[in-house]
Structure formats: structure tokens, C-alpha cells
């Protein structure tokens, strides 16, 4: 990688983000020289150098690795084991949680809300991600042009994130209220929807409303990260491209998009991973209702664990969610790798 000329290298040299199993070409793993410039060194020197490199790398990684093991390893293993056990409130006092094998998984998959929750999870995730990403990217591109007050306005964009979710949830419920909500008052005022649609209380609209609020929440994240990515694309590339006649859409297509790709991957992969487990905003707005219209795997898992105190089933559903997340990431990263390589 390092042998490539800087410019053409950029596409590849900006490594894949999240869990990209593919940052480095597989061929390069064992035996390839640690760094291009050093490649000429003698064998022995190379080996000791490699050992030193490895030690240095370990030293850099160690603190974070230790933290990850302590703060994630244990909970995950525990949760995994729990999904094979019969948990009840008594378990907390007696410590007895009989082993039930796949029983919890069978129960949750066969439950009547499971398929509905799966569909809702898919719609919610896809809807939220598409909305957040498209708007976020447009904003990032927009703010890339510098104009008066752009910095301040850009910071203000992050405001929705600063409001505690308890409060923004309550505010959105008022705004979306059927009878007195600001949105319906406005829509009726401009004669757009005089019928006062029940955003949160109609089965056909509730999911849409929840997705819209989640998009609202996600825009700051997307816009900021993508803006950061755009900042790292050198201006000269656009100049070079414009000499070749690539401006506007073409410049975006051939310069911006390829160079932004790694950051896009971070945003999309993390976005999906975060969105798929979203719980608080749905519970705050509709609590999964009306009539399961906004029930997702995450809310269902929560209800099982914390309302019915069936922690085994809750954990099983949670693990199904993690598995879906994982599957998506692996498939996406693999596909993306292929696309980049081509």
C-alpha cells in the first residue's frame, strides 16, 4: 500500500472503518515487509524490526484492549449464557436459572409479534438510515461551501443532541399530538391536512412518525462525521478534476464519493448498528403501540425483560438482534470491499 503513489493511493490508503476485515490486503499479512521503505533491509534485521513493531503496536493497543475486555467482554458472555437459561425474578434472589437450551429462542421466534417486529425493525432501520444519510450528506456538502455564519450554524445543527432524550421525546409527543399538536395546527392553518392526522395514534402513521423523529435525531451525527470526511478531501483534486471538465455532479461522482467512501462506511455501518437497537425514542413516543404498530425487536426484547421479567427470552431476542447487526456488517463490508477493489 505504501508503495503506491500518494494520490492514487488515497482511495485505498484511507482504511476501511468499522471492523473492516479488509483494511490490509490479505496477501500482505504474514511475511510482507512492514513498511515499503524498509523493504530492502536484511532478513535478520527485518525480523527483529518486525518484532519491535509488533511490541510497539501492542503497547499502543493494550490500554484500549484491556478496557474493551473489562467493559464489554464480560457482559456479552453473561448475556449469551443467559439466553439459554430460564430467568425469573426469583433468579435474582436464589441464583437459580435452569438451563433450557434453545427454548427461549424458540419461544420468541414463535411469538405472534415476532414477524411484525422484524418487519418494523427493518423498515425503521432502512427508513431512518436513508433519511439521515441523505440529509446528512446534503448538509455536509452544503456546509462545505463557506458562507457567512456557516460555522455557527453548523454548530447549531448539533443542538438536538444536547437535549436530554426524555425532554425531546416529550416535546415531540406534543408537537405530533393529534388534537393540539403544533404540527397539526400548522398543517390545518395552511390547509394542508385539515383532518388532523393522528401521527402517533394511527397504526398506518405511527411508524412513519417514529422514523421521522429518529431521522431528526440522527442528522447531526451524519452531517458532522461526513463534513469531517469532506474536509479531508484536498481542494486541489477538485481543481484537477475541473480542468478535466468534471464539475458539479461529475465532481461529486468521481472525486467526492470515492474519497469519502471510508467515512461513508463508518457512518453507514455504525448508523445501522445504532439504529437497529434504538429503544428509548420509540418507547418515549409510542411505547411500541398503537397495537404493535411500532414494535421492534429491541422494544420487544425490552418488554420481555423488564415488563414480564423473562430475562432469558429478552436476552435471546437481544442476541438475535446482535446477530442481525453482525450479519449486516459482514455482508456490507465484504460487498464494499469488492466495490473498492474494482
Amino acid at each position, binding site marked *: 500500500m505504501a508503495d503506491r503513489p500518494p494520490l492514487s493511493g488515497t482511495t485505498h490508503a484511507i482504511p476501511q472503518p468499522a471492523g473492516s476485515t479488509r483494511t490490509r490486503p490479505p496477501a500482505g499479512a504474514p511475511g510482507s515487509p512492514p513498511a515499503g521503505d524498509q523493504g530492502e533491509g536484511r532478513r535478520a534485521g527485518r525480523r527483529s524490526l518486525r518484532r519491535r513493531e509488533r511490541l510497539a503496536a501492542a503497547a499502543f493497543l493494550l490500554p484500549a484492549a484491556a478496557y474493551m475486555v473489562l467493559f464489554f467482554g464480560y457482559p456479552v458472555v453473561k448475556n449469551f449464557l443467559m439466553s439459554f437459561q430460564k430467568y425469573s425474578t426469583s433468579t435474582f434472589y436464589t441464583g437459580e436459572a435452569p438451563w433450557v437450551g434453545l427454548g427461549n429462542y424458540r419461544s420468541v421466534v414463535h411469538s405472534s409479534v415476532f414477524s411484525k417486529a422484524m418487519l418494523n425493525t427493518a423498515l425503521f432501520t432502512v427508513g431512518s438510515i436513508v433519511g439521515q444519510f441523505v440529509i446528512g450528506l446534503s448538509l455536509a456538502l452544503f456546509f462545505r461551501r463557506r458562507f457567512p455564519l456557516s460555522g455557527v450554524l453548523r454548530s447549531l445543527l448539533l443542538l438536538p443532541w444536547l437535549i436530554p432524550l426524555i425532554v425531546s421525546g*416529550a416535546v415531540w409527543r406534543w408537537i405530533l399530538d393529534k388534537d393540539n399538536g403544533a404540527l397539526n395546527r400548522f398543517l390545518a392553518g395552511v390547509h394542508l391536512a385539515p383532518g388532523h392526522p393522528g401521527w402517533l*395514534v394511527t*397504526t398506518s402513521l405511527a411508524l412513519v412518525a417514529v422514523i421521522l423523529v429518529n431521522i431528526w435525531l440522527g442528522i447531526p451525527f451524519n452531517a458532522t462525521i461526513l463534513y469531517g470526511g469532506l474536509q479531508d478531501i484536498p481542494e486541489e483534486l477538485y481543481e484537477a478534476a475541473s480542468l478535466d471538465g468534471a464539475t458539479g455532479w461529475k465532481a461529486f461522482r468521481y472525486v467526492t464519493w470515492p474519497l469519502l467512501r471510508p467515512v461513508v462506511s463508518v457512518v453507514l455501518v455504525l448508523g445501522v448498528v445504532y439504529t437497529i437497537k434504538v429503544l428509548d425514542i420509540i418507547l418515549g413516543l409510542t*411505547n411500541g403501540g398503537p*397495537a404493535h404498530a411500532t414494535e421492534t425487536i429491541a422494544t420487544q426484547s425490552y418488554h420481555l425483560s423488564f415488563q414480564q421479567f423473562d430475562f432469558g427470552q429478552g436476552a435471546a431476542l437481544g442476541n438475535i438482534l446482535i446477530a442481525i447487526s453482525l450479519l449486516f456488517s459482514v455482508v456490507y463490508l465484504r460487498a464494499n470491499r469488492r466495490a473498492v477493489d474494482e
Partner: protein
Amino acid sequence: MTRSRRTRVAVASALALPLALAACGGSSGGGTQPTAGGSSAAGGATTTLRVLDYYNNDPGKTVWQKALEGCAAQAGAKISREAVPGASLIPKVLQQASSRTLPDLLMLDNPDLQQIAATGALIPLDQFGITGDGFAKGVVDASTYKGKLYGLQPSTNTIALIYNKDILDKAGVKPPTTWDELKATAKQLTKGGTYGFAVSAPANYEGTWQFLPFMWTNGGDEKDINTPQVAQAVQLWVDLMKDGSLSKSALNWTQADVNDQFKAGKAAMMINGPWQFPVLDAAKGLNYGVAQIPAPKAGEKVVAPLGGETWTVPQTKDKDKQALAAKVVQCLNSDESQLNLAKQNDTIPTKTALLASFSSTNPHIKAFADQIPTARARTGELGADWPKAATKIYTAFQAALTGQTSAADAVKQAQNG
């Protein structure tokens, strides 16, 4: 939980429920106690009892603090109290159960008692010579698990029909007493931006709590909700919504939201509890009255659900402290304390002998108090299985209210899971 406490802010409850799942290994021994336990009775110093409850806001917070301090002083102890938000009480209790750090004195919402008692974390009160004699039957039922009394509830509450006197007077109608009257009156009172009727009907236990008086009074039962009686009760709500007398927003309202609507004059009648009195009293120009919940037919006895919190003594290492805690429970339940707590918290005493004199002191509380002797505990019949039934109930009325199925199909589908 009766009041909106548990479900009040769903966002919070979403996040609010952490548990010490990890410590389920069992005997993690005494562990370090999060709150200083104070010296044990062995020393000469005053014993400090650790108390856990969910009255974390004034005025309730202070009222309970004073009551607890007073009773502890009588027993010769001090208290160190932790008041957590309502939604996080049970998770906290489970955490403490698994890490063996349960408090000496624990308040539970009454429908939760049996579930906690079933874990073995509570001490039966007969060990301390405490009985439920003289208490309303429903109240004792809720605090009883497998024939043993595990808690005592100094005060209770329930829901009733609260109506805007001015609006009803202007229309020249009386508060409805039957379902037919309710539908007619609600329809008549619905005009402009005002709905005739408001009730909280969300997809959670709060919604179930609101639905119970209609279901129970009509002869429905939580053991099997696939019955015409339950379907009829569902149909009543559906009719009210179809008529336009009940806003569709009810599907997402909390009890506090309903109260807001009523207070602002957007609802002429509502189903709600006496804990709303302070807010209603503070609203300028609001003239309200309270009536019993309408029954299916004239003269039928209303069966309302019992709310309120029960006080328990958890299993801890220290026998002396347990005895002291039991004394505090007893003291909180003395006649004087019951009346005092009920008065200050706008709730109702649980000893039947106190009801008559108490309700005469406050005309607003009378309709509530009148329902107490026949009121039912949610867990009276199913005990620890109540949450499953409660889920079926709200699933049923939500399905029907959103127009997905008929009332009959809704109860059938919900019952069959």
C-alpha cells in the same frame, strides 16, 4: 402502580431498568453496602434503618420522610432513605436482591408484591405478629402470597369519573351512571375543541389499569379475557372513540396527559385518580366533581382496581433491624398514621373502619372511598402471573381501538397470544 408513576415517562422507563443480572451467582455475601448501614443494634448508638421507596418528588417525598422519621423514632431508630424514580424501583430491588444489599424497609407498588415475595426476598409479617385484620379485603389480597401476608399498605387509591361541573351544568346534564348514559352524555358534551370523555389507553400497564373498572364491573375476568363481558367493555371504548367523544390520542395518553386535557377544558369528563387533586385545585376557574365510574346497568356495583403502595421487610442479615423495621411498618399503618398519610397524599385509608369518617372530610374523595370496599387487587387472582394477563388486556383494547379487529376478535387473539 396506579399512578402514572411507572409508565409516566416512557423514555425514562426504557432506560431506567438496569439490573444486576451479573450477580446471579447467588451468595455474594454481604458485599459492600451502597448506603452506610449505620452501626448495628449491638452498639449503644441508635440503629439506622435503610429505606427504599419511590416517592422521590415533593409533596409526597416530604410527607413520607416525616412519616418514616416519626415511626422510626418511636421504634428507637433512625432512617437512611433512598427514593428512586418509580420505574427504577423493581430493577433496583432485583439488583439489591442479587447482591444481597436489600434495604431494611422496602416500599413496593402493590401489584409487584407477590412477584417479589415469590423470590423469597421478603419476610412474612406474621413472624412479627402483624396481621391484616381490619383492612379492606382487596388490600390484604394484594399483599398476600401463598396464604402469608408480606406487606401492609397504609393508604390506597383508585380511579373514578372526574367531571367539569361548569360544562355539565351548562349542558344541563348530570354525571352518567350507566354505560348508555356515558355514551350519550359524552357525545352531547363533545363540541368545539372539547371532547366529552377522556381516558388514558396506551399499550402498557397504565392503560390496563384504566380499563379494569369497565372490564371487572361488567363481569370480565383476567383469567380468560376471551369472553363477551370483556369484549363488551372493549366495545364501549371503541364506541366512545367512534362517536368522536374520545380522542384517538387516548391511545398514547398517560394519566397525567389526560389530566392536562381536562384541566385545559379540552375534556368534559375523565377517568383519573385522586392524586390529581392538587393540580386540579391549583387550576384557576376549574370547578370539578367526582362520581363513581359508570356501570353497565343502573344499580350495578362498580368493581374498581386498588392502587397504592405496600411496606415490606426484606430478608437481611440483621434480625434486630428486621424487628425494628416491622415496628415501623406497624406504626405507618396505625389509625392515626393512615389518616394522616391519606389526607396529605390525597389517598384513602385502607382500614375499612376509617373510611366513613375519612370520606366525610373531603367531598371529592367520597366517590373514590365508596369504591374501596368492593375494589379488587390486580394480583388478587393471578398473583405473579398478573403481568402476562395485563399485557393481554392492553393488547386487546389497543387492537380494537385502532380498528384492526372487532372487539370480539381482539379479545380472542389477545387471549390466545
